[in-house]
Structures are given as C-alpha cells and as structure tokens.
C-alpha cells in the first residue's frame, strides 16, 4: 500500500530540490556569465606586468573556488545568517532562501570558471574578426559569448549537477526541516539514519534519473552544436 502522503512528500522534496538548485543556478548564471566573459576577455590584453599578475591571481582564486567544499560554504553562510550573525535580522536561516544562498556561492565560481576558459580559448580569433568588420566592443563580446554558448551551457549544467547533489551545505543552513527545507539529498541522509532504506533508495533513484535527464539533454545539445 503506497499512501498518498508518501507520494506527496516525495513530490514536495523533489520540487524543493529543483527549486532551490534551479534558482541558485539561475541567479548564478546572471552573475557568473558576465564576470566569466569579462575575465575571459582580459586574458590576451594584460600588457602591463601588474595587470597580468592581478589577472593570474584572480583566475587562480576562481579555479580554487570551483572546488569549494559545500560544508565550508554551509558553515560560513550559517554564521552569516544566524540571528547573532551579521545578517541575522533578515531571519533567513532555516529557510529555502538560505539554501539558495549556500548553493549560489558554490555555483558562481563554477560558472565563472568554465565560461572564462571557454571565452578565453576562442576570444582572440572571433573578436579581432568582428572588430575588423566594424563591430563595437559590446557586439564583439556578445558574438564571442554566442560562439562559446555550448561551453557556457555546459557550465550551467555542471553547476546544476553540483548543486542538486550537494548535501553538506544545505543541511547546515536549511536545517533539514520536513516539508520546508528537506531536499532529495538531505532526505536520503535522514531516511538512512531512520533505517527507511526503501524511501532512501526511491529518493536516490529520483536524484539519479534527474541527473540522467540533465546529461541526456546536454549530450543532445552538444551533438547538435557539433554538427553545425
């Protein structure tokens, strides 16, 4: 007998996961793609040594942050959002917003990093050509971004994959409250602790199939992109 409430809860958990990671990646793209593009462009223009140094440092930092441990992000966001922390008055701790912020911090470096290297690798050829054909700088930038769109898309999907499978950070900042901040990953932790392996496996299967659908979409898009 599968109860209604069981299905309702799984649905709630899945939708929350999608919503939290989706919004985090959405905002992350809005922040990350412009920054990544900008940094990608800088690559070939560092004429002065100081500029080049800043450039290298900045990029190293971003590459480090691409592998930011989620638990550390969770801890820092927790300390920021706790009522006795600097942003405590917002009352965001243990809400989905806190989880979105946590994942956003994880996701932005990934999007910046991948966009940056994608743009950097094709920037020179396209930009010069566009400028020589009379394009403005903005137009040239848009063109480069358009050419790099497959990589940018990849960065978004990689970021989403990282966000949706993340558990340590949102556990700390979301509090894993049933019906409110319980996502697929944190629910798997709880159900395993409670010994409800059926539920845990069901949730695991949902998580896996979501990852599969996302990767399928990515592969199809990449194949399409390669054909042209």
């Amino acid at each position, binding site marked *: 007998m599968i109860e209604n409430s069981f299905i309702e809860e799984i649905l709630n958990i899945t939708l929350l996961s999608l919503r939290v990671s989706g919004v985090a990646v959405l905002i992350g793209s809005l922040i990350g793609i412009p920054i990544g593009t900008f940094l990608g462009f800088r690559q070939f223009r560092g004429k002065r040594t100081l500029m080049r140094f800043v450039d290298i440092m900045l990029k190293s930092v971003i590459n480090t942050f691409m592998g930011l441990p989620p638990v550390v992000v969770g801890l820092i966001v927790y300390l920021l959002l706790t009522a006795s922390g600097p942003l405590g008055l917002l009352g965001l701790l243990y809400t989905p917003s806190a989880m979105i912020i946590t994942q956003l911090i994880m996701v932005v470096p990934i999007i910046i990093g991948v966009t940056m290297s994608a743009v950097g690798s094709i920037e020179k050829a396209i930009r010069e*050509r566009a400028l020589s054909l*009379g394009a403005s700088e903005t137009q040239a930038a848009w063109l480069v971004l358009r050419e790099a769109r497959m990589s940018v898309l990849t960065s978004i999907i990689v970021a989403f994959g990282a966000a949706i499978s993340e558990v340590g950070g949102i556990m700390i900042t979301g509090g894993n*409250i049933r019906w409110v901040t319980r996502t697929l990953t944190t629910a798997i932790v709880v159900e395993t602790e409670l010994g409800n392996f059926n539920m845990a496996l069901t949730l695991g299967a949902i998580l896996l199939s979501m990852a599969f659908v996302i990767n399928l979409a990515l592969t199809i898009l990449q194949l399409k992109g390669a054909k042209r």
Partner: protein
Amino acid sequence: MLISCEQRYVYLNITVYSLLMRKPSKILIGIIGLMIVIVGVLAYEQYLRGFQKSIIVLATTTSTYDSGLLDYLMPIFERKYNAEVHIISVGTGQAIETAKRGDADLVLVHSRQLELEFVNSTYGIHRVGVMYNDFVIIGPTSDSAGINGLANATEAFRRIADAGAKGNAIFISRADKSGTNMLELSIWKRLGMTPSNKTQTWYLEAGAGMGTVLRMANEKGAYTLTDRATWLSFKNQLTNLKVLVEGDVILLNPYAIILVNPEKWPQRNYKGALKLAKWMISEEGQNLIANFKKEDETLFKPLARDFNKAHELGFPEQEKEIAWYDGQNP
C-alpha cells in the same frame, strides 16, 4: 584540413555579419529580463509564505524526532492552532546552542547539566519537565563483557571498559554532545575515566545521531547507551543487539522544554513557542504523549503534572512553572 579551416572562417564571417545585422543586445536583455522576473516571482512567493502562518522553530534532540513522537504530535498541534512547527533535530548540545544564537523559539532537550547552563545564561526561561523514559545499555547478544542483568549501570560500564582493554568488546559513543552522550560521559566520569578514541581502540566516537549509532553497534557487535524510545523504534532492524542493563536510577531520562528569552531575542516567535509549550504540558498534550506507542510499548511517559516524579528527576520548581504556564494566555 585546409579546406575545413577555410570553411570555418567563411562560416565565422557569416556569423559575424548575421549577428551584426541583428541587434543582439535585445535578445540579451530579453533573456536577462526573463531570468530576473522568474527570480523575483520566486522571492516574492517566499516572502509571502512567511506571513501566512505562525512559524515556530523547535530545536530538539534526535531521540524525540527519530522515535516518531514529533511527527505524531506536531500535525495535531498545527491543525489546532493554524501554526507551522519547523523541527530542527540535532543533539541536545547543538539544539541549545541554536536557541542561544537566536535561531529557534524553544527547545525540547534532555541533559540536566546543559539545560541548567542554558537557563543560567538567561537565554533560556521557564524550564519545565515534559516527559521521561529511560536509557538502556545495549550490546551484542553474545555479551562478551558479561553485563547482562546488572542493575548498576556504572558497574556495567566498568566491565565493558575492562573487556574492551582486553580486546573483547567495543563501545560506540555518540560523541556529539547530545543528552545521551552527556549521560554516558558522566557515567565514565564516575569511574574516573575519560575514554577517547585516540588512546582506547575499543572506544569509538561516532559523532552521529542515535539511529546511526545503533546501526553501527549492530554491524560491529558493539555496546552503546541508548534512550529506550529510539531503541524500540529501531529494534526490528537490530537483530544482533539486545537490552542488557536497565532500571538503574541514573539511567532515567527526563525531557525538558525551555523557552527562548524574548528579552534576548525579541524577533523570535515567543508567543508561538509559549503556545506550543503550553499545549505539550496540557492534559491533552500529556495524554497524547502517553498514548504514543510502538509495537504496544509506551515510548515516553508524561511528566509535566506528575510533580513527585518531576522533583525526583531534577525539576524542583515544576509546580511553580506549570502554574506559570497555565496562567499564560498567548
């Protein structure tokens, strides 16, 4: 190779032209605008959610949650008072720390020492006994330390340590500053011991909730201290373990509710917390607690209005607190 390179450049030129003809900035603005609208709508929805219902954040121990008690009680309360109870289920130490930081409205915990520290710090007010059950020492059915049937928990711990030193027993500690962990440490202290994973190989510090530790003990054939409620709810899965020691007075396990001081954290939902606490210690709440059973065994016994028992279990001011709660009208 050369041809494909040529083609690539031709293609590039075409793209460049076609893009310059169009006005790409409009597309960009469109996409960004759409994204902002989506984010805005979601944020607004989130903002509205906060006002619909009174949200009460209850920080509590894993034992009350893992045993299923709160999943049984809270929906009844939520329906009756049109409130939403958000349960943060962690160890007692962390629950109190959460409340102290102003991230919860009330706590339901079980460690006298930590509770009193919380109240003395003036962050917690109106500590009141709600219910109790007891701890049991469980271990492998083979009982290599030979503690089965002992009435004295301290003696049982001594034998486990002795057997452990000889390599015949393993003890798993919660090691998470939970109420269970605090009691366990106080028993070791009576023996003049502070066991640690670093020096004693038979003592494993898990740093995990009760359910996880029980499962670990089951896998490793180890001894551990557990509250009876969690033990009963997990018993079916733990075929290698059984209750070996029970009934010692020091193993009694009272749970207390403490409100977060509204003077320290005025932005917290003090009224909601008061409502929930009042309901838990009301006749209705106490009866519901008494009727919560797993496989015909009562998991928690009501304590709030059993004053003699409350005094015995470390609530000297139980009458006064109950009278205070009864007099409140949130």
